[in-house]
């Protein structure tokens, strides 16, 4: 297969992504296995994102894919990491055309950021604060329009700033809405949530419902690894139990730790005594 074919195949994978860990992993593995062709493959991501037929949910899924890709990249000498960082701002701009994608992008961006040696805690924390400036608040009162900010940054930092800017805009619109006079009539759901809007960046009712289901499913899967331990040696010790599980909830001091192991061994004795037949 030549590079062109591989890029085509990759584009196909991206278009057909579904938000399931297995599917995301498969696409990431494909990209990483073919990292010889990285230069052909990484621009494909933006190409696919710019495709007019790609819907809002698919855009969000592609960002989840990028999260998985970066997370796996260390196994392949950090392939793609540098290139992705370059196009990250453009990707975020594209995916956040719909504010519906903001939460998922935020979560993935937090996890992506861990793989860079840049401290972004400041931005992570900001996401949950009131981002409106005094001027914004004045504009809201005057029923004015929000003014966009421009940034000189690059890469990861710029990506964060774009996301926060998107969030600020969303807060601005909401504040304006809350100033309007409340309606006393009963309204239909189409009106209340604008689920039948002609705006191509708005989600339809069906898209929203499938998104909720996908999110729940992903949340469930994410818990399957909760108890995984990276174990260097192939032996299982009670120390591991204490460090990874018990201490997680309530760290024991030395004295308590000793008592803890005593108690464990008592329990073990008790259990083996309960068998009628000799164990081991």
């Amino acid at each position, binding site marked *: 297969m030549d590079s062109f074919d591989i890029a085509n195949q990759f584009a196909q994978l991206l278009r057909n992504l579904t938000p399931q860990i297995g599917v995301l992993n498969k696409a990431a593995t494909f990209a990483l296995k073919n990292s010889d062709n990285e230069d052909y493959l990484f621009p494909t991501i933006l190409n696919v994102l710019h495709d007019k037929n790609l819907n809002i949910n698919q855009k969000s899924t592609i960002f989840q894919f990028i999260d998985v890709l970066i997370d796996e990249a260390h196994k392949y000498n950090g392939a793609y990491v540098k290139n992705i960082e370059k196009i990250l701002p453009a990707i975020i701009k594209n995916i956040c055309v719909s*504010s*519906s*994608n*903001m*939460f998922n992008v935020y979560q993935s961006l937090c996890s992506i950021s861990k793989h860079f040696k840049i401290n972004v805690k400041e931005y992570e924390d900001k996401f*949950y604060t009131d981002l409106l400036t005094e001027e914004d608040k004045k504009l809201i009162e005057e029923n004015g329009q929000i003014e966009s900010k421009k940034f000189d940054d690059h890469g990861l930092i710029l990506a964060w700033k774009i996301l926060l800017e998107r969030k600020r805009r*969303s*807060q601005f619109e*909401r*504040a304006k*809405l*809350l100033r*309007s*006079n*409340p*309606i*006393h009539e*009963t*309204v*239909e*759901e189409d*009106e*209340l*949530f*604008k*689920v039948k809007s002609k705006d191509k960046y708005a*989600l339809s*009712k069906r898209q*929203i*419902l499938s*998104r*909720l289901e996908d*999110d*729940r499913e992903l*949340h*469930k899967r994410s*818990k399957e690894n909760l108890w995984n331990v990276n174990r260097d040696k192939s032996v299982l010790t009670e120390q591991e139990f204490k460090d990874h599980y018990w201490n*997680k*909830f*309530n760290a*024991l001091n030395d004295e*308590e730790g000793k*008592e*803890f192991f*005593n*108690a464990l061994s*008592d*329990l073990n*004795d*008790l*259990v083996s*005594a*309960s068998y009628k037949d000799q164990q081991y």
Partner: protein
Amino acid sequence: MVDKFNRPTGPRGNNNQQQRDYNSRDYNNNQRDFQRSSYIPHKSNSKNSQSRDSYVPSGPKRDQYRPNNNGFRKDNNNIRPSGPSGPSGPSGTKRPLPSGPSSLKKRRDFHHNNIPKGPKIRAIPEIRKDLLPHQIYTINKTGPNIYEKVQQVGEGTYGKVYKVKHNRTNEFVAFKKLRLESEREGFPITAIREIKLLQSFDHPNVIGLLEMMIEKNSIYMVFDYLDHDLTGLLSHPDLNLQESHRKYIFKQLISGLNYLHEKRIIHRDIKGSNILLDKIGNLKIADFGLARPMKILTAGELPDYTNRVITIWYRPPELLLGATDYGREVDIWGVGCLLMELYYKVAIFRGLDEISQLCKIFNIMGTPNMSNWPDIDKLPWFEMLKPRLNLASKFEDKFKKTMSIEAFKLAEKLLMLNPKSRPTSEEILQDEYFKNDPKPEPLYFIKDFEGEWHEFETKQRRREERKRIKEEEDAEANARKERIEKVSPQCTDKSVKTSPESKDAKE
């Protein structure tokens, strides 16, 4: 006082009262340990249980030696039949003794005059005198027809629920059958969670597990039988609740919920069909299929639970907006919905899916704003499901006139959009609603209701009613058609009938 490690065991014990007190104290200890999460099994503790002559390791506890039939019957007021262990705190290991079921006590709530009987009573063949009780096992083969299915009373996610009669005692119990055919991965962990929780309960307003039964490939949970559930009862055409009756029901509901919440358990499926009622309105919260104990969190840690819980009509806005770090407040919304139902007989928010459910809620309660729910935009699905219009609350206009003022004010608090603004179950118990007259009063009049009213039968009755109406209408239409055809053979009846079903859904 009874010594901690020498107290009478299951069938041989004969001081029930003492034992019961002891149990509850022991339980409280566990509770505290659990909350501190620093419980370490004590050395002396396990040593002791090991040396106790009556200690039986986990296993066929139910099948231990039991005094012979006659003796058991004669003074069984004082004897706890053996069975699944009684209330045990979440950190189970600390309890040294299997204590027998709390079934006796549980049954007493409702059957004061009936002598409680062990679920299965058998004559034990002669026992060799030189054996200690724990060395004797019996293999119980329940004879045929000890239990007789009377009728099905429930159909749920996991399996069917039957009303069952014990042929020797003539008592009724409920069998909840676990559906296992579809379980490829063995005994479902969710069922284990449900059973474990049920075993730990000891409160008049919370259902307790009498025992587990295994028959061929089926597993049953056995409960006290209650004649009605709230959904079924509220659908009774002759039901005419007074304020005192509503208060009687609601007070018990909150007491039961408060018990669960104190134990750090979130029910996560509060709704009418999971609230059981006996012949005079004594209430028990049931169905712990979705319940879970709350996680113990370290500082700064947030809980992370699934939000795929609670039947949609009773699901609070934070869950509809994707919260996974929710708490007991989700149950409070549910009982808020039920308080309204005690007045209106049907749920007040009846959506078809998450979006329409939120729409119903916002239309009545108004859309949230900066002052009543400032951090709503932190919820995962807020951007997807944020209201694009500003709606005023219509709750007062709609409901104030038809409720007592105290009930209305309480409902308003329970149905706060912002979970942080909802009162705790403890606070609800102190509410004006319960302080002011009229005082709660049992529903003696429902004793006269014919039949049993569970959601299951209600649905069945409704189906039959619909079928009857449809048949009547069809017959009428046919007759009309025939008449018309007789007059002019080309003309056909094209009018579309709306079935009662579709009308219901639109309401």
